[in-house]
């Protein structure tokens, strides 16, 4: 593996609630090179919070602490103001779940993409428009001129999500965090969008964190997977070995999925074990912890 792009060690996030602090992420550690890392978990497991903590997008009520939270060696928790803005949207970008809510509804799509270039002074003048059209073409939008002028509501979900991906890639970031980028899309479109993302990420040698609740999607797309339970990583596994995961939670999740090729009268449901909250972490290549 190449030198780490992102280093996370002992990341804790807690939210201040009426009855004290509520932990959302607990002691999460991982490193990321120029590779595709999947973070999988159910709702409330803290997967999106990790992505937001890296981008420092969490609200004031969140208490974030970590032994290390570094991007290209730079301490993310120490960054303020302009230094932080230089990073966000330029070096680290994020694709959100639903283009209907994450694109500006009253601004043409092309202008929104162009904004990234202007704000970060990547390009100016006539070059801006040319670059936007070029990236729209790269995400396989057939009629980039039309899409440039279109408002978000004039695009389908798949087109909108491609426009989002274009916006996040145009400044040539080193790390892309994709938070459920395809769960608002139909299965057939999902594949195309993922293929585009895969192609661009590998071609540009970027790092990618794919956050998802969909185990099979992550397994087919990523190199490595972290499985999150109640804010903790309970298992780290090579994506291609996901079917052979060892932690009872991971196994329970996989078993609870209905399968096309395997009919069954009833599905096994997950029996949650309180020990998982503080139990051992299963890592690939290591013995099952006692």
């Amino acid at each position, binding site marked *: 593996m190449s030198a780490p792009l992102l280093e996370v060690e002992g990341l804790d996030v807690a939210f201040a609630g009426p009855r004290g602090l509520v932990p959302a992420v607990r002691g999460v550690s991982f490193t990321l090179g120029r590779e595709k890392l999947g973070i999988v978990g159910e709702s409330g497991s803290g997967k999106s919070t990790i992505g937001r903590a890296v981008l420092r997008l969490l609200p004031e009520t969140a208490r974030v602490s970590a032994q290390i939270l570094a991007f290209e060696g730079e301490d993310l928790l120490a960054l303020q103001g302009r230094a932080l803005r230089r990073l966000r949207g330029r070096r680290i970008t994020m694709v959100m779940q639903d283009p209907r809510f994450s694109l500006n509804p009253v601004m043409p799509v092309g202008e929104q993409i162009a904004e990234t270039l202007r704000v970060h002074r990547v390009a100016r003048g006539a070059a801006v428009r040319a670059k936007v059209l070029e990236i729209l073409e790269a995400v396989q939008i057939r009629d980039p001129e039309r899409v440039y002028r279109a408002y978000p509501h004039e695009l389908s*979900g798949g087109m909108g999500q491609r426009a989002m991906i274009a916006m996040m890639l145009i400044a040539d970031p080193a790390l892309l965090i994709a938070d459920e980028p395809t769960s608002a899309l139909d*299965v057939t*479109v999902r594949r195309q969008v993922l293929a585009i993302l895969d192609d661009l990420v590998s071609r540009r040698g970027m790092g990618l964190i794919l956050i998802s*609740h969909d185990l099979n999607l992550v397994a087919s797309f990523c190199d490595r997977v972290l499985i999150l339970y109640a804010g903790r990583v309970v298992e780290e596994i090579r994506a291609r070995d996901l079917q052979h995961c060892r932690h009872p939670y991971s196994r329970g999740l996989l078993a609870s999925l209905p399968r096309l090729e395997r*009919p069954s009268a009833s599905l096994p449901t997950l029996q949650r074990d309180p020990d998982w909250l503080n139990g051992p972490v299963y890592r690939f290549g290591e013995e099952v912890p006692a």
Partner: protein
Amino acid sequence: MIAVEELGVRFGQDRDAVQAVEGVSFRVAEGESFGLVGESGCGKSTVLRVLCGLQREWRGRVEIAGAALSRRPPRGFFRGVQMVFQDPYGSLHPRFTVDATLAEPLAIHGLGDRRRRVERVLEAVGLDPAFRYRFPHQLSGGQRQRVAVARALILEPRVLLLDEPTSALDVSVQAEILNLLSTLRSERGLTFLLVSHDLAVVSHLCSRLAVMRAGRLVEQLPVETLRSGAAAEPYSRELIEASRG
């Protein structure tokens, strides 16, 4: 139990008119579980909305339990046909307790003995009677969807229309709700019409299904054909291939 013939639904007028459903025909036998699959905008939910009376403008012929669905059906008609919606966060009244939510259909249809009926239906969906006094925000997603199922069941319908009943839920919770639906169907001899984009969910719950595209039925097939991937129409095969991941 359900017979739909040449169903057509059109939205909008003149130049802006959209033919959402066109020439859709299918039959579902009593006690059978039938799936409708397709991508967003293919018209699958619109078909369900016609069957439960939410969509009043339509053409064609619809029969449920031997009675034809008219433009203004009598109230009693819908006692026999109930719907479970996709998102329990959106489909339960946030300021109604579970008890009020479940008692409302009973009041509408003039049914007595409310307390006992509410308790019985909560038991049927696996919720403790103490849940009666909770509000939706005091329930988990799975518990909320159980309440939505209970609300549909409390009128003792013969047909349950399920519109993506598990797509807003985590997979572990989805498994619980799917098991609950299977159990209820076999215990009560219910007829299911399930709309879903998830072919694995459809194959788990249904014995037959229809593939829809752009408002039309492309193909009807038994679930075995779905499993083997041997659908006749190229579009169905594409959909099956895509959902294998």
